[in-house]
């Protein structure tokens, strides 16, 4: 079976915390424990005058890519509910193709 992966297109991540809480609800995590956590860079002004301001949802060691949901035929809870629609889920091969079309994306897979 192919390995599954997430693609996160952080170009359009608004930092809305939906993925964090979706994950806590799915995995019954208490407040303060995260399976995915929003990291923030900026706002920081560049020499060009433009602003650097990005959010990056980072899966943690508690992430299992929602194995139970996926087995049922669902998407991972964070992917399903992402408000900005910046998350994709599939096999590493499928996700590599998604990254091709989406600049400022990162791919994530679980540790073996």
């Amino acid at each position, binding site marked *: 079976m192919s390995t599954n992966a997430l693609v996160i297109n952080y170009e359009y991540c*608004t930092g809305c915390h*939906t993925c964090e809480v979706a994950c806590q609800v799915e995995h019954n995590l*208490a407040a303060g424990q995260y399976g995915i956590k929003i990291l923030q860079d900026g*706002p920081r002004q560049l020499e060009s005058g433009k602003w650097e301001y990005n959010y990056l949802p980072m899966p943690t060691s508690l992430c299992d890519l929602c194995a139970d949901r996926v087995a*049922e035929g669902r998407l991972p809870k964070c992917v399903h509910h992402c408000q900005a629609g910046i998350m994709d889920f599939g096999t590493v091969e499928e996700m590599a193709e998604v990254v091709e079309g989406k600049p400022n994306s990162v791919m994530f897979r679980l540790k073996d």
Partner: protein
Amino acid sequence: MALEYNKELYRDDVYQWQEGELTATRTTAWGGPGCHNGCAVIYYTDKDGKLVNIEGDPNSPFSRGRLCLRCLNYVEQINSPTRLLHPMKRAKEDRGKDAWEQISWDEALDIIDKNVKCIQREYGPESIAAMMGTGRNVCWQCPVICYWAFQSPNFCLGFLSGDACMLPRSTLNFAQNGGALIADMSQSHPLRYEDDPEYEIPKLVIMWGNNPVVSNSDAFLGHWIVDVMQRGAKTIVVDPKLTWMASRADVWLRLRPGTDAALAMGMTHVIIEEDLYDHDFVSRWSYGFDELVEAAKEYTPEKVAEICWVDAEDIRKAARMYAELHPAAMQWGLKVDQSPTGIPCAQAINNLVALTGNYDVPGGNIQTDQPYRTDMAYNCGLQDVPEEIRAKRIGDKISPLHTFGFSATAMSDMILHAIETDDPYPIKMMWFQSTNPIANMGTEAPRVYKALMKLDFVAVADIFMTPTAMACADLVLPIAMCPERNSFRTWYTPMRAITKVCEAPGEAVSDEELIVKVVGKCNPELLERFGIHDDVELLDFFLRERSDYGGQLGRDFHDLKEEVFNYPELPYKKYEKGLCRPDGSVGFMTMTGRFEFSIYPFKQWGMPPVPYFEEPPESPYSDKIDEAYKEEYPLVLTTGARMWQYFHSEHRQFPRMRQIQPDPQVRMNPETAEKYGVIEGDWVWIENHRGRCRQKVVFDVTYDPRVIAADHGWWFPERDPEAPSLYGVFDSNINNLTSQMQFGETGYGAPYCCLMCKIYKCTEENSKVLPGVQVTELGGWEYEMAQPNVREAENADVNGNELNEALYAGRGDE
């Protein structure tokens, strides 16, 4: 780019199905706890009827599977151990004490009825006022209780000065073009974006005075803008801080809070001067353009740049982009309302929509309304109040707009004034439904507190014990949350069912069941006449008798529940098709039948018919305050920015929401902090002549160093509920500094976002008397309180009531 959801698991052919032991129910969610949207959800309940899971419904064109953190956390919310479970009473002398006694619903209703009858007899029904909060799906339920049960015309929002939330914009829309205008993200139609053959992706979206992805205000789901950005839309952001959106924008206009009207007139100036406006629209469909040309002359980009603290070239660039990129959508927000020039500011921005040819076009701004001509809003049920009582509505003399029937509610500043002075008559009883004014929307909170303590009887209906209830209520009623209620939503298309899937805990009831209980007790003949005995019959009554959804088709709540949502047709360019006026003629539903750049009735009433900018009463350039004041309080103070995890004063008791930001925060440029000797993480006092509060410093390099932004809505459910603490509601309350009675000459708009203040670090020495003690034990802070500036309507040549009747003629419910 849409995700592929499993069609076998997420069904669209039925509203309810079985998945193993769980029942899945498709419906929509709308408060409380509140928000402004009605996203589509699937509730999963177990065999005992308990809610165990919630998911976004991928088959909804409105929200397309997504759901925000607050809804996703519904199971934690619904099971919160601190929910109100039973009606409770308290002796009047125990206000402020946690001395509640659990009582039955029968006793609670007896208490309400006794007080209502007594006040009706001694003072008249108008001496009872009812107030609601925002976005909690009580926007017709609270009015119905006020009008049906109490027979009082005095319903309004919870001490919201100048009605400064949406009402300035919506009132302006009705006066200027005869209907609500919203940024068109294809949300009014069942096919979205590229799937809708008529729709065009906006080439530009302007976000003005709101951060839509966080606030989701006025029935608009902010992330729709992210959807169109991913499809190529450019953006312009008008905001004092660099929001994430602003970091992606082509132009970010960092304006001084409260100067939006000047900026809009500056853009108008450029568009006219450079001949970039839509000549066809102006010549065929508008009135008063020449007067606008004249009015815009003085607002040169250079002058406006000085007023607004922005770059003149950026004003030009924004104006040119808006005029040249077509279609372009204007997503305006709360800050338009939150200066005393709320109406002129809204007019100036609305003019831009029309000037640039974006009126009711795909991907521009679409004229909308409630579906099926329902009127489930602030005047719902007002027609059932006797006319002579309706004529006593407080605030009807405040401006011609109010006198001549453009107002949607009683005027809340004047309700406060009536409590304080008995003018024009006393207010003796208040009914609060899903509003916590001392913690949230009530400006000058200590003044509001003092007024409430004067009242003979106060009842609060809410989902939790609130500081407002703890401070001043004599009776508290427990309310159901969203999955526990049957209701429906008509706040713009689509029409949506809200279906009950589980029982409320204890004896909590839905706001609809509350109507049946309270009206059934206080005015039973009326309910009998309408044939209403339970919540579903109440919904059926409005759907069948006061809406075209039922109307001749005979559909009722059961049908809507099965449909889940329903999109009536909403074509574009309705003014060209004879769809705006009851007589079916082309044109707009205005006095002139045209889009009024200069508003004709305003001129007749002696009000400025074209937009203008005026300094906020307390600003660095205001002539209403002296130099000594400006020296003492040098910083411009704005407040009210939304947070992801909280809806105003709500959600503070849920750990998964509180984890995101546990403390109240005041944001400022590090340069400002350095000047006042504070660093990030310090607690500071924020103070002006009316009072002070404390919040925690957070650095944000994107603010102008002359501006700071403080949180609103803070109270601390974990702190001592009793006075003087009252859950710490006054200690970090920015409304210790805001004002009542400084509304605009239209009666609309108030300076929530543009005051002056100073900051200094909290020390043990200067924190000995906390605001809670100051307000509840020491009589508050001493200062001269502003009084209302009432201006009788000067010229009644144009009878606004006739106009209003014409506007609503043929709406089916009259």
